[in-house]
Protein backbone atom coordinates (compact mmCIF):
# COMPACT_ATOMS: atom_id res chain seq x y z
CA UNK A 1 0.00 0.00 0.00
CA UNK A 2 1.35 3.40 -0.91
CA UNK A 3 0.24 6.94 -0.26
CA UNK A 4 1.28 10.47 -1.25
CA UNK A 5 2.55 12.57 1.68
CA UNK A 6 4.50 15.75 2.38
CA UNK A 7 8.15 15.32 3.39
CA UNK A 8 9.97 17.93 5.46
CA UNK A 9 13.67 17.63 6.34
CA UNK A 10 14.19 18.82 9.93
CA UNK A 11 16.89 19.44 12.49
CA UNK A 12 17.22 16.91 15.33
CA UNK A 13 19.53 16.92 18.33
CA UNK A 14 20.82 13.48 17.35
CA UNK A 15 21.59 14.72 13.84
CA UNK A 16 23.45 17.72 15.29
CA UNK A 17 25.57 15.73 17.71
CA UNK A 18 26.26 12.96 15.18
CA UNK A 19 27.39 15.63 12.72
CA UNK A 20 30.25 16.40 15.09
CA UNK A 21 31.32 12.76 15.20
CA UNK A 22 31.66 12.87 11.41
CA UNK A 23 29.35 12.59 8.44
CA UNK A 24 30.84 9.27 7.35
CA UNK A 25 30.33 7.75 10.79
CA UNK A 26 27.56 5.29 11.62
CA UNK A 27 25.72 7.55 14.08
CA UNK A 28 25.17 10.25 11.45
CA UNK A 29 24.23 7.85 8.68
CA UNK A 30 21.80 6.06 10.99
CA UNK A 31 20.03 9.21 12.19
CA UNK A 32 19.73 10.71 8.71
CA UNK A 33 18.19 7.52 7.33
CA UNK A 34 15.18 7.66 9.69
CA UNK A 35 11.81 9.06 8.74
CA UNK A 36 9.22 10.09 11.33
CA UNK A 37 5.70 8.91 10.49
CA UNK A 38 2.43 9.61 12.31
CA UNK A 39 1.45 6.36 14.06
CA UNK A 40 -2.12 6.56 12.68
CA UNK A 41 -0.65 6.76 9.19
CA UNK A 42 1.60 3.83 10.02
CA UNK A 43 -1.36 1.73 11.05
CA UNK A 44 -3.27 2.57 7.86
CA UNK A 45 -0.23 1.74 5.72
CA UNK A 46 0.51 -1.48 7.64
CA UNK A 47 3.85 -0.19 8.90
CA UNK A 48 5.68 -1.22 12.05
CA UNK A 49 8.39 0.69 13.92
CA UNK A 50 11.71 -0.04 12.19
CA UNK A 51 10.21 -1.09 8.86
CA UNK A 52 12.03 -0.03 5.72
CA UNK A 53 10.01 2.35 3.57
CA UNK A 54 10.61 3.66 0.07
CA UNK A 55 10.12 7.40 -0.46
CA UNK A 56 9.89 8.35 -4.10
CA UNK A 57 8.96 11.21 -6.40
CA UNK A 58 9.68 12.23 -9.99
CA UNK A 59 13.29 13.07 -9.04
CA UNK A 60 14.32 9.81 -7.43
CA UNK A 61 13.81 7.46 -4.54
CA UNK A 62 15.40 6.50 -1.28
CA UNK A 63 14.91 3.75 1.29
CA UNK A 64 14.79 4.82 4.93
CA UNK A 65 13.66 3.43 8.28
CA UNK A 66 10.23 4.17 9.72
CA UNK A 67 10.07 5.80 13.18
CA UNK A 68 6.67 6.32 14.79
CA UNK A 69 5.54 9.70 16.13
CA UNK A 70 2.44 10.29 18.22
CA UNK A 71 -0.45 11.85 16.22
CA UNK A 72 -0.32 14.87 18.55
CA UNK A 73 3.34 15.48 17.64
CA UNK A 74 3.24 15.00 13.89
CA UNK A 75 0.09 15.71 11.82
CA UNK A 76 -1.25 13.04 9.51
CA UNK A 77 0.18 13.09 6.01
CA UNK A 78 3.40 14.77 7.12
CA UNK A 79 6.78 13.00 7.17
CA UNK A 80 9.85 14.41 8.95
CA UNK A 81 13.38 13.31 8.06
CA UNK A 82 16.59 14.62 9.67
CA UNK A 83 18.69 16.71 7.25
CA UNK A 84 21.20 14.50 5.47
CA UNK A 85 22.21 12.73 2.27
CA UNK A 86 19.00 10.71 1.65
CA UNK A 87 16.90 13.79 0.91
CA UNK A 88 19.24 14.84 -1.91
CA UNK A 89 17.86 11.93 -3.94
CA UNK A 90 14.39 13.47 -3.81
CA UNK A 91 15.26 17.13 -4.28
CA UNK A 92 14.63 18.84 -7.61
CA UNK A 93 17.45 21.16 -8.66
CA UNK A 94 15.06 23.83 -10.05
CA UNK A 95 15.28 26.87 -7.78
CA UNK A 96 13.01 29.23 -9.75
CA UNK A 97 15.54 32.02 -9.71
CA UNK A 98 16.19 31.88 -6.00
CA UNK A 99 19.19 29.58 -5.55
CA UNK A 100 17.13 27.55 -3.10
CA UNK A 101 15.74 24.18 -4.21
CA UNK A 102 12.43 23.20 -2.63
CA UNK A 103 13.83 21.31 0.34
CA UNK A 104 10.77 21.32 2.57
CA UNK A 105 7.27 20.25 1.67
CA UNK A 106 8.34 17.79 -1.01
CA UNK A 107 5.54 15.57 -2.28
CA UNK A 108 6.63 11.94 -2.02
CA UNK A 109 5.02 8.53 -2.23
CA UNK A 110 5.65 6.34 0.80
CA UNK A 111 5.39 2.56 0.62
CA UNK A 112 6.64 -0.35 2.66
CA UNK A 113 9.64 -2.19 1.28
CA UNK A 114 9.02 -5.91 1.26
CA UNK A 115 12.23 -7.59 2.30
Amino acid sequence: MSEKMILIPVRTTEQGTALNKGKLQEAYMLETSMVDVNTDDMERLGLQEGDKVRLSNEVGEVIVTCRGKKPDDLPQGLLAIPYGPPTTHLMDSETYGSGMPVSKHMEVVIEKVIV
Partner: protein
Amino acid sequence: MSENTRTIKNAVCTFCGCVCDDMELTVDLDEHRITKAKNACILGRSWFSEHVIEDRPIAAIGGKEVSFEEAVEESAQILTKAKFPIIYGLSEASVEAQREAVAIADYMRGSIDSTSSVCHGPTGMAFQGVGESTTTLGEVKNRADLVIFWGCNPAEAHPRLFTRYAVTTKGMFIPRGKKDRTVVLVDPRKTASAPVANIHIRPKPATDFEMIWALRALIKGKKVNASIEKVTGVPLETLQDLAERMKNCNFGVVFFGMGLTMGRGRYFNTGALFSMVTDLNEYTHFVVKPARGHGNVTGADQVLTWQTGYPFGVNFNLGYPRFNPGEFTAVDNLARDGADAAMFIASDPASNFPKAAVEQMKRIPVISLDTRRSVTSELAYVVFSTSAWGLNEHGTAYRMDDIPITLRPAFESPYPSDVVILSAIKNRVFELNIDKRSIGMSARSDIGKATLHASM
Protein backbone atom coordinates in the same frame (compact mmCIF):
# COMPACT_ATOMS: atom_id res chain seq x y z
CA MET B 1 42.96 12.21 30.79
CA SER B 2 46.44 13.58 31.54
CA GLU B 3 47.23 16.09 34.27
CA ASN B 4 48.63 18.53 31.74
CA THR B 5 45.51 20.61 31.32
CA ARG B 6 44.65 24.22 30.68
CA THR B 7 41.44 26.16 31.30
CA ILE B 8 40.23 28.71 28.78
CA LYS B 9 37.59 31.13 29.97
CA ASN B 10 35.19 33.02 27.70
CA ALA B 11 35.95 30.71 24.81
CA VAL B 12 33.57 30.71 21.85
CA CYS B 13 31.41 27.90 20.52
CA THR B 14 31.07 28.18 16.75
CA PHE B 15 28.71 25.27 16.11
CA CYS B 16 25.53 27.27 15.57
CA GLY B 17 24.64 30.90 14.95
CA CYS B 18 24.33 31.68 18.67
CA VAL B 19 28.18 31.81 18.75
CA CYS B 20 28.08 31.63 22.57
CA ASP B 21 31.15 33.34 24.01
CA ASP B 22 30.91 32.22 27.63
CA MET B 23 32.44 28.75 27.35
CA GLU B 24 34.87 27.52 29.96
CA LEU B 25 36.97 24.85 28.30
CA THR B 26 39.24 22.32 29.95
CA VAL B 27 41.90 21.24 27.47
CA ASP B 28 44.07 18.14 27.75
CA LEU B 29 47.30 19.45 26.26
CA ASP B 30 48.87 16.00 25.89
CA GLU B 31 45.94 14.45 24.10
CA HIS B 32 45.10 17.64 22.18
CA ARG B 33 41.42 17.53 23.00
CA ILE B 34 38.81 19.35 25.01
CA THR B 35 37.63 17.26 27.92
CA LYS B 36 35.07 19.62 29.40
CA ALA B 37 32.98 22.48 28.04
CA LYS B 38 31.21 24.27 30.88
CA ASN B 39 28.13 26.27 29.82
CA ALA B 40 27.89 24.47 26.47
CA CYS B 41 24.55 23.05 25.25
CA ILE B 42 24.25 19.47 24.02
CA LEU B 43 25.32 20.49 20.50
CA GLY B 44 28.22 22.57 21.82
CA ARG B 45 29.44 19.76 24.06
CA SER B 46 29.65 17.39 21.12
CA TRP B 47 31.26 20.13 19.00
CA PHE B 48 34.07 20.49 21.54
CA SER B 49 34.50 16.87 22.59
CA GLU B 50 34.39 15.27 19.13
CA HIS B 51 37.05 17.47 17.58
CA VAL B 52 40.29 15.57 17.91
CA ILE B 53 43.42 15.54 15.79
CA GLU B 54 42.85 12.88 13.14
CA ASP B 55 45.61 11.14 11.26
CA ARG B 56 45.12 12.43 7.73
CA PRO B 57 47.54 13.81 5.15
CA ILE B 58 47.65 17.60 5.03
CA ALA B 59 46.97 17.44 1.33
CA ALA B 60 46.13 14.84 -1.30
CA ILE B 61 45.62 14.87 -5.06
CA GLY B 62 43.63 12.07 -6.64
CA GLY B 63 43.81 10.14 -3.38
CA LYS B 64 47.62 10.30 -3.14
CA GLU B 65 49.38 12.27 -0.40
CA VAL B 66 51.22 15.32 -1.73
CA SER B 67 52.99 18.32 -0.24
CA PHE B 68 51.09 21.45 0.73
CA GLU B 69 52.84 23.36 -2.07
CA GLU B 70 51.91 20.80 -4.73
CA ALA B 71 48.25 20.91 -3.68
CA VAL B 72 48.25 24.72 -3.72
CA GLU B 73 49.78 24.74 -7.23
CA GLU B 74 47.28 22.19 -8.53
CA SER B 75 44.36 24.10 -7.01
CA ALA B 76 45.51 27.40 -8.50
CA GLN B 77 45.97 25.79 -11.93
CA ILE B 78 42.49 24.21 -11.80
CA LEU B 79 40.81 27.46 -10.81
CA THR B 80 42.73 29.50 -13.39
CA LYS B 81 42.17 27.13 -16.33
CA ALA B 82 38.45 26.78 -15.65
CA LYS B 83 36.07 29.05 -17.59
CA PHE B 84 33.31 29.15 -14.96
CA PRO B 85 34.74 28.06 -11.62
CA ILE B 86 32.81 28.42 -8.38
CA ILE B 87 33.78 28.75 -4.73
CA TYR B 88 31.12 27.60 -2.29
CA GLY B 89 30.66 27.00 1.42
CA LEU B 90 32.31 29.33 3.94
CA SER B 91 29.84 28.90 6.80
CA GLU B 92 32.28 27.07 9.06
CA ALA B 93 35.20 29.36 8.37
CA SER B 94 36.37 32.59 9.94
CA VAL B 95 35.81 36.05 8.50
CA GLU B 96 39.52 36.14 7.71
CA ALA B 97 39.23 32.97 5.58
CA GLN B 98 36.09 34.26 3.88
CA ARG B 99 37.95 37.41 2.81
CA GLU B 100 40.65 35.31 1.13
CA ALA B 101 37.99 33.30 -0.69
CA VAL B 102 36.37 36.44 -2.11
CA ALA B 103 39.76 37.63 -3.36
CA ILE B 104 40.33 34.31 -5.15
CA ALA B 105 36.89 34.52 -6.80
CA ASP B 106 37.78 38.02 -7.99
CA TYR B 107 41.21 37.05 -9.36
CA MET B 108 39.92 33.94 -11.13
CA ARG B 109 36.84 35.79 -12.38
CA GLY B 110 34.52 33.07 -11.19
CA SER B 111 31.51 32.76 -8.91
CA ILE B 112 31.35 32.71 -5.13
CA ASP B 113 28.41 31.55 -3.08
CA SER B 114 27.92 30.56 0.54
CA THR B 115 25.67 28.07 2.29
CA SER B 116 23.32 31.04 2.72
CA SER B 117 21.84 30.29 -0.69
CA VAL B 118 20.35 27.01 0.60
CA CYS B 119 19.63 28.40 4.06
CA HIS B 120 18.56 32.02 4.52
CA GLY B 121 19.26 33.12 0.93
CA PRO B 122 15.55 33.93 0.47
CA THR B 123 15.84 36.02 3.63
CA GLY B 124 18.68 38.01 2.06
CA MET B 125 16.56 38.57 -1.04
CA ALA B 126 13.59 39.78 1.00
CA PHE B 127 15.95 41.95 3.04
CA GLN B 128 16.98 43.74 -0.16
CA GLY B 129 13.38 44.13 -1.30
CA VAL B 130 11.60 44.99 1.92
CA GLY B 131 14.18 45.79 4.60
CA GLU B 132 14.46 44.42 8.10
CA SER B 133 13.49 45.93 11.44
CA THR B 134 16.57 44.61 13.12
CA THR B 135 17.92 44.07 16.64
CA THR B 136 20.62 42.37 18.67
CA LEU B 137 20.17 39.39 20.94
CA GLY B 138 21.12 41.63 23.86
CA GLU B 139 18.09 43.83 23.17
CA VAL B 140 15.89 40.75 22.95
CA LYS B 141 17.21 39.53 26.29
CA ASN B 142 16.63 42.85 28.02
CA ARG B 143 13.41 44.02 26.41
CA ALA B 144 11.37 41.41 24.52
CA ASP B 145 8.05 40.62 26.20
CA LEU B 146 6.60 38.87 23.14
CA VAL B 147 8.82 36.29 21.44
CA ILE B 148 7.61 34.43 18.36
CA PHE B 149 9.44 31.46 16.85
CA TRP B 150 8.15 30.88 13.32
CA GLY B 151 9.19 27.81 11.34
CA CYS B 152 12.21 27.17 13.50
CA ASN B 153 13.08 24.72 16.25
CA PRO B 154 15.68 26.33 18.51
CA ALA B 155 15.49 23.52 21.10
CA GLU B 156 17.26 21.30 18.59
CA ALA B 157 19.08 23.79 16.37
CA HIS B 158 20.01 26.73 18.67
CA PRO B 159 19.40 25.43 22.22
CA ARG B 160 20.87 28.41 24.09
CA LEU B 161 18.75 30.91 22.20
CA PHE B 162 16.11 30.09 24.85
CA THR B 163 18.28 30.17 27.95
CA ARG B 164 20.78 32.88 27.07
CA TYR B 165 18.80 35.40 25.04
CA ALA B 166 15.13 34.98 24.35
CA VAL B 167 13.01 32.97 26.78
CA THR B 168 14.11 32.01 30.29
CA THR B 169 16.88 34.56 30.74
CA LYS B 170 16.20 37.64 32.88
CA GLY B 171 16.79 41.08 31.37
CA MET B 172 16.85 44.74 32.40
CA PHE B 173 13.14 45.23 31.65
CA ILE B 174 12.28 41.53 31.92
CA PRO B 175 13.23 40.93 35.58
CA ARG B 176 11.33 37.65 35.94
CA GLY B 177 12.55 36.04 32.72
CA LYS B 178 10.03 33.65 31.21
CA LYS B 179 7.24 34.93 33.50
CA ASP B 180 7.54 38.35 31.86
CA ARG B 181 7.43 37.05 28.30
CA THR B 182 4.76 35.50 26.11
CA VAL B 183 6.28 32.89 23.84
CA VAL B 184 4.53 31.84 20.62
CA LEU B 185 5.59 28.94 18.42
CA VAL B 186 4.31 28.64 14.84
CA ASP B 187 5.00 25.15 13.53
CA PRO B 188 2.81 22.33 12.20
CA ARG B 189 4.80 19.85 14.29
CA LYS B 190 4.92 19.61 18.06
CA THR B 191 8.69 19.94 18.18
CA ALA B 192 11.06 19.91 21.14
CA SER B 193 10.58 23.69 21.22
CA ALA B 194 6.85 23.39 21.97
CA PRO B 195 7.16 23.05 25.79
CA VAL B 196 8.51 26.61 26.18
CA ALA B 197 5.62 28.12 24.20
CA ASN B 198 2.62 29.73 25.89
CA ILE B 199 0.82 29.53 22.56
CA HIS B 200 1.50 26.92 19.89
CA ILE B 201 -0.11 27.70 16.53
CA ARG B 202 -0.07 24.78 14.12
CA PRO B 203 -0.85 25.90 10.55
CA LYS B 204 -1.14 23.50 7.65
CA PRO B 205 2.28 23.01 6.04
CA ALA B 206 3.23 25.63 3.44
CA THR B 207 0.47 28.10 4.33
CA ASP B 208 2.76 30.58 6.10
CA PHE B 209 2.35 33.28 3.46
CA GLU B 210 -1.44 33.16 3.70
CA MET B 211 -1.30 33.28 7.48
CA ILE B 212 1.11 36.24 7.53
CA TRP B 213 -1.01 38.11 4.98
CA ALA B 214 -4.13 37.57 7.06
CA LEU B 215 -2.26 38.83 10.12
CA ARG B 216 -1.20 41.96 8.21
CA ALA B 217 -4.84 42.66 7.40
CA LEU B 218 -5.91 42.12 11.02
CA ILE B 219 -3.12 44.34 12.33
CA LYS B 220 -4.39 47.13 10.06
CA GLY B 221 -7.94 46.63 11.34
CA LYS B 222 -9.27 45.02 8.14
CA LYS B 223 -11.85 42.27 8.19
CA VAL B 224 -10.67 38.76 7.41
CA ASN B 225 -13.12 36.06 6.34
CA ALA B 226 -13.47 33.09 8.67
CA SER B 227 -12.64 30.86 5.69
CA ILE B 228 -8.98 31.62 6.44
CA GLU B 229 -9.19 28.59 8.72
CA LYS B 230 -9.91 26.39 5.72
CA VAL B 231 -6.76 27.67 4.02
CA THR B 232 -4.33 27.74 6.93
CA GLY B 233 -5.87 25.37 9.45
CA VAL B 234 -5.75 28.19 12.01
CA PRO B 235 -9.04 29.61 13.38
CA LEU B 236 -9.68 33.32 12.76
CA GLU B 237 -9.97 33.91 16.54
CA THR B 238 -6.42 32.58 17.02
CA LEU B 239 -5.11 34.97 14.37
CA GLN B 240 -7.05 37.89 15.88
CA ASP B 241 -5.61 37.09 19.30
CA LEU B 242 -2.06 36.96 17.92
CA ALA B 243 -2.52 40.22 15.99
CA GLU B 244 -3.71 41.98 19.18
CA ARG B 245 -0.86 40.56 21.24
CA MET B 246 1.65 41.77 18.64
CA LYS B 247 0.17 45.27 18.51
CA ASN B 248 -0.01 45.61 22.29
CA CYS B 249 3.33 44.24 23.42
CA ASN B 250 6.16 46.56 24.48
CA PHE B 251 8.88 44.91 22.44
CA GLY B 252 8.11 42.04 20.08
CA VAL B 253 10.49 39.84 18.16
CA VAL B 254 10.02 37.15 15.54
CA PHE B 255 12.75 34.56 15.05
CA PHE B 256 12.20 32.52 11.92
CA GLY B 257 13.86 29.58 10.24
CA MET B 258 13.93 27.18 7.35
CA GLY B 259 10.20 26.57 7.66
CA LEU B 260 9.76 29.85 5.80
CA THR B 261 12.76 29.81 3.46
CA MET B 262 12.97 26.23 2.21
CA GLY B 263 9.41 25.78 0.99
CA ARG B 264 7.75 26.96 -2.22
CA GLY B 265 7.12 30.45 -0.81
CA ARG B 266 10.80 31.23 -0.25
CA TYR B 267 11.38 35.01 -0.35
CA PHE B 268 7.65 35.69 -0.62
CA ASN B 269 7.29 34.19 2.87
CA THR B 270 10.20 36.11 4.33
CA GLY B 271 9.23 39.30 2.52
CA ALA B 272 5.71 39.00 3.91
CA LEU B 273 7.09 38.52 7.42
CA PHE B 274 9.41 41.54 7.12
CA SER B 275 6.45 43.60 5.84
CA MET B 276 4.28 42.48 8.77
CA VAL B 277 6.98 43.52 11.24
CA THR B 278 7.32 46.88 9.50
CA ASP B 279 3.53 47.32 9.81
CA LEU B 280 3.70 46.55 13.53
CA ASN B 281 6.08 49.43 14.10
CA GLU B 282 3.08 51.74 13.60
CA TYR B 283 1.88 50.46 16.97
CA THR B 284 4.87 49.28 19.01
CA HIS B 285 8.52 48.30 18.73
CA PHE B 286 8.79 45.08 16.75
CA VAL B 287 11.86 43.39 15.29
CA VAL B 288 12.65 40.30 13.25
CA LYS B 289 15.70 38.05 13.09
CA PRO B 290 16.51 34.91 11.12
CA ALA B 291 17.60 32.11 13.47
CA ARG B 292 20.84 31.36 11.69
CA GLY B 293 23.57 28.72 11.79
CA HIS B 294 25.93 26.97 11.19
CA GLY B 295 28.72 28.90 12.81
CA ASN B 296 29.69 31.84 10.68
CA VAL B 297 27.15 31.76 7.86
CA THR B 298 26.14 35.26 8.97
CA GLY B 299 29.78 36.31 8.55
CA ALA B 300 29.78 34.95 4.98
CA ASP B 301 26.92 37.34 4.13
CA GLN B 302 28.73 40.20 5.87
CA VAL B 303 32.07 39.62 4.15
CA LEU B 304 30.61 39.13 0.68
CA THR B 305 28.48 42.22 1.13
CA TRP B 306 31.26 44.50 2.29
CA GLN B 307 33.63 43.20 -0.41
CA THR B 308 31.27 42.84 -3.39
CA GLY B 309 28.07 44.64 -2.45
CA TYR B 310 26.04 41.41 -2.45
CA PRO B 311 25.52 38.71 0.19
CA PHE B 312 25.77 35.47 -1.86
CA GLY B 313 25.53 34.20 -5.44
CA VAL B 314 28.15 36.64 -6.81
CA ASN B 315 29.99 36.36 -10.13
CA PHE B 316 33.12 38.17 -11.38
CA ASN B 317 33.15 36.99 -15.02
CA LEU B 318 32.98 40.53 -16.34
CA GLY B 319 35.65 41.81 -13.97
CA TYR B 320 33.16 43.33 -11.53
CA PRO B 321 30.70 41.69 -9.13
CA ARG B 322 27.22 40.76 -10.28
CA PHE B 323 24.49 39.23 -8.12
CA ASN B 324 21.92 36.86 -9.52
CA PRO B 325 20.35 34.14 -7.39
CA GLY B 326 19.26 31.31 -9.65
CA GLU B 327 22.26 31.84 -11.93
CA PHE B 328 25.37 32.36 -9.80
CA THR B 329 24.15 30.36 -6.81
CA ALA B 330 25.83 26.99 -6.35
CA VAL B 331 22.90 24.64 -6.90
CA ASP B 332 21.95 26.29 -10.20
CA ASN B 333 25.54 26.72 -11.27
CA LEU B 334 26.31 23.03 -10.76
CA ALA B 335 23.01 21.44 -11.75
CA ARG B 336 22.96 23.21 -15.12
CA ASP B 337 26.47 21.93 -15.91
CA GLY B 338 27.76 25.49 -15.78
CA ALA B 339 30.58 25.10 -13.29
CA ASP B 340 33.67 23.43 -14.75
CA ALA B 341 35.66 23.51 -11.48
CA ALA B 342 34.68 24.00 -7.85
CA MET B 343 36.34 24.74 -4.54
CA PHE B 344 34.28 23.82 -1.48
CA ILE B 345 35.40 25.45 1.75
CA ALA B 346 34.26 24.15 5.13
CA SER B 347 31.03 22.68 3.82
CA ASP B 348 29.66 19.44 2.46
CA PRO B 349 27.39 20.17 -0.52
CA ALA B 350 27.65 16.59 -1.81
CA SER B 351 25.58 15.49 1.16
CA ASN B 352 22.81 18.08 0.89
CA PHE B 353 22.57 19.37 -2.70
CA PRO B 354 20.09 18.00 -5.24
CA LYS B 355 21.20 14.91 -7.12
CA ALA B 356 21.80 16.76 -10.42
CA ALA B 357 24.24 19.14 -8.70
CA VAL B 358 26.08 16.28 -7.01
CA GLU B 359 26.39 14.45 -10.35
CA GLN B 360 28.12 17.53 -11.81
CA MET B 361 30.54 17.57 -8.86
CA LYS B 362 31.63 14.08 -9.93
CA ARG B 363 32.37 15.27 -13.48
CA ILE B 364 34.54 18.30 -12.70
CA PRO B 365 37.74 18.87 -10.69
CA VAL B 366 36.76 19.60 -7.09
CA ILE B 367 38.97 21.11 -4.40
CA SER B 368 37.89 20.49 -0.80
CA LEU B 369 39.01 22.20 2.41
CA ASP B 370 37.61 20.54 5.50
CA THR B 371 38.49 19.57 9.04
CA ARG B 372 36.86 16.20 8.61
CA ARG B 373 36.32 13.62 5.89
CA SER B 374 32.95 14.21 4.29
CA VAL B 375 30.91 13.06 1.31
CA THR B 376 32.35 16.05 -0.57
CA SER B 377 35.98 15.41 0.39
CA GLU B 378 35.54 11.80 -0.74
CA LEU B 379 34.70 12.87 -4.30
CA ALA B 380 37.18 15.79 -4.43
CA TYR B 381 40.32 15.67 -6.59
CA VAL B 382 42.39 17.97 -4.36
CA VAL B 383 41.79 17.58 -0.63
CA PHE B 384 43.20 19.81 2.11
CA SER B 385 42.85 18.77 5.75
CA THR B 386 42.45 21.89 7.83
CA SER B 387 42.67 22.81 11.47
CA ALA B 388 39.35 23.50 13.16
CA TRP B 389 38.33 27.14 13.14
CA GLY B 390 37.65 28.52 16.59
CA LEU B 391 39.13 25.44 18.28
CA ASN B 392 42.64 25.67 16.82
CA GLU B 393 42.70 29.09 15.18
CA HIS B 394 42.15 32.73 16.01
CA GLY B 395 39.71 34.73 13.96
CA THR B 396 36.29 36.33 13.94
CA ALA B 397 32.79 34.92 13.67
CA TYR B 398 29.48 36.75 13.33
CA ARG B 399 26.61 35.84 15.62
CA MET B 400 23.16 35.46 14.04
CA ASP B 401 22.40 39.10 15.00
CA ASP B 402 25.39 40.39 12.99
CA ILE B 403 27.61 40.94 16.03
CA PRO B 404 31.28 40.01 15.42
CA ILE B 405 32.87 37.83 18.10
CA THR B 406 36.59 37.22 18.54
CA LEU B 407 37.52 33.52 18.72
CA ARG B 408 39.77 32.04 21.40
CA PRO B 409 41.48 28.84 20.24
CA ALA B 410 41.95 25.97 22.70
CA PHE B 411 44.84 23.91 21.35
CA GLU B 412 47.17 23.74 18.37
CA SER B 413 46.65 21.61 15.32
CA PRO B 414 49.31 20.19 12.98
CA TYR B 415 47.07 21.12 10.05
CA PRO B 416 47.07 24.51 8.32
CA SER B 417 44.13 26.83 8.77
CA ASP B 418 41.67 27.75 6.00
CA VAL B 419 43.28 31.21 6.01
CA VAL B 420 46.78 29.85 5.36
CA ILE B 421 45.60 27.55 2.55
CA LEU B 422 43.37 30.13 0.89
CA SER B 423 46.00 32.83 1.17
CA ALA B 424 48.55 30.58 -0.60
CA ILE B 425 46.03 29.70 -3.34
CA LYS B 426 45.08 33.36 -3.69
CA ASN B 427 48.69 34.45 -4.20
CA ARG B 428 49.29 31.79 -6.84
CA VAL B 429 45.99 32.47 -8.64
CA PHE B 430 46.93 36.14 -8.70
CA GLU B 431 50.31 35.35 -10.31
CA LEU B 432 48.71 33.08 -12.89
CA ASN B 433 46.06 35.67 -13.75
CA ILE B 434 48.22 38.78 -14.06
CA ASP B 435 48.31 38.51 -17.86
CA LYS B 436 44.65 37.67 -18.14
CA ARG B 437 43.70 40.62 -15.94
CA SER B 438 45.82 43.12 -17.83
CA ILE B 439 44.47 41.85 -21.18
CA GLY B 440 40.97 42.09 -19.83
CA MET B 441 41.54 45.62 -18.57
CA SER B 442 43.00 46.85 -21.84
CA ALA B 443 40.18 45.16 -23.75
CA ARG B 444 37.65 46.95 -21.57
CA SER B 445 39.39 50.30 -22.05
CA ASP B 446 39.32 49.67 -25.84
CA ILE B 447 35.60 49.07 -25.64
CA GLY B 448 35.31 52.30 -23.71
CA LYS B 449 37.24 54.19 -26.41
CA ALA B 450 35.12 52.64 -29.16
CA THR B 451 31.97 53.71 -27.38
CA LEU B 452 33.37 57.21 -26.94
CA HIS B 453 34.23 57.48 -30.65
CA ALA B 454 30.84 56.17 -31.66
CA SER B 455 29.11 58.77 -29.55
CA MET B 456 31.19 61.65 -30.95
